[in-house]
């Protein structure tokens, strides 16, 4: 086993996710490019989903498979979810981490994990 800290540990683990989730969700809701996908969605349920997403993107424990990602976003793909929307989410994610003074090298690693789900999220 490596003695090196994992990305999740470097970012601060669950506490970091908790610090990020409200900031990230606010950015997403006020981002005109993607906010319409969140209209009429229960905010409480959505906040828990945002937390799951952040935990995964931070390299934390999760059991999501590519198939889960496809199923979870299929209804949004039908409504026109495309690459530009994924770009917006990854930008909002990076901006959230900058606001929390996370270093650019770690931000790049988080963005890379988020990026790795792109094809599954978009169902291709």
């Amino acid at each position, binding site marked *: 086993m490596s003695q090196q800290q994992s990305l999740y540990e470097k970012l601060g683990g*669950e506490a970091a996710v908790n610090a990020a989730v409200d900031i990230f*969700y*606010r950015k997403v*809701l006020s981002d005109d490019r993607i906010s319409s996908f969140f209209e009429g969605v229960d905010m409480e*349920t959505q*906040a*828990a989903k945002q937390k*799951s997403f952040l935990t995964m993107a931070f390299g934390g424990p*999760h*059991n999501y498979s590519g198939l889960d990602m496809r199923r979870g976003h299929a209804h949004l793909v039908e409504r026109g979810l495309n690459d530009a929307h994924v770009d917006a989410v990854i930008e909002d994610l990076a901006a959230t981490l900058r606001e929390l003074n996370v270093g650019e090298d770690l931000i790049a690693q988080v963005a890379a994990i988020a990026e790795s789900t792109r094809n599954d999220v978009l169902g291709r």
Partner: protein
Amino acid sequence: MVNIRYAKDNFELGENQSVLDCLTSRGVPVPFSCRSGVCQTCLMRATGGTPPESSQNGLKDTLKLQNYFLACICHPTADLEVAMPNDDDVQAVIPATVKSLKLLNSEIMHVELECHAPIEYRAGQFINLFRDRSLGRSYSLASVPHEDDHLHLHVRRLPQGRVSGWIHEELRPGETVEIRGPGGDCFYTPGNTEQGLVLIGTGSGLAPLYGIIRDALSQNHTGPIHLFHGSRDLNGLYLTGELRDLVERYSNFNYVPCLSGGDAPHGFAAGRADDVAFQQISNLKNWRMFLCGHPDMVIAARKKAFMAGASMKDIYADAFNVSQSS
């Protein structure tokens, strides 16, 4: 050996097995997603026994206090009786005697009920009151356990309301009704007594808020408490005298009655309750919010409160949805 009891079935919990795995492997359709204690899809409630603290990680305080837990990270060391979060039937129907009925304004009736069996509740939760076995409606509790002997409801008479109309027109003191509950997670949790509270209610949405405020004050909440109660005109407001008395008694309590239907006399704010609240307190970072009443107001105010800095975990809401069958 630890047993998990669900809907009259007993399942033996395997070694290192989660409650979720135990139930799903035996065919119980518990919904789940992340299986790592984050997404809250597998939320369940312990109706017997106490779930381990670790299985409540990340849940709202009001859910923790009611023994909700996440099945995927729940590894109990003692027997647990569990239910799905919306299994109403786990609660018994309790008879209750109507002690008094009193109009609070032209359309809202104060209903006082004495339960025939003890009921454990928190001010701000709701009960279901039944006109008959198949016809019940949810009403919020304005009473405070330990302060009030009986349950207090504020029942607004709805046009063609089959339960509210019956309560207003036919129900009499001394009669016995059936209730079930409590439910809901819009209530005061002890701790963090210096945190500011903002409560916004429309119409009979004042009922849970009146309970929550008195509960917080009786538990020595020291932070500022701001109540914004809204109605179209003066006739829609009620308990104004009682609330002004509370303002006299508690320096940290502030009451702003709001009128949305035009000019407001001295002592009243003009505008909708949520608009007035967000004008007066524009930065809601670190505030605890309680939103009750008209669903449109509750949904809009929840988003506004969150965007104005309130944390999701600090926003408690109860939308009064009107039954489609009235």
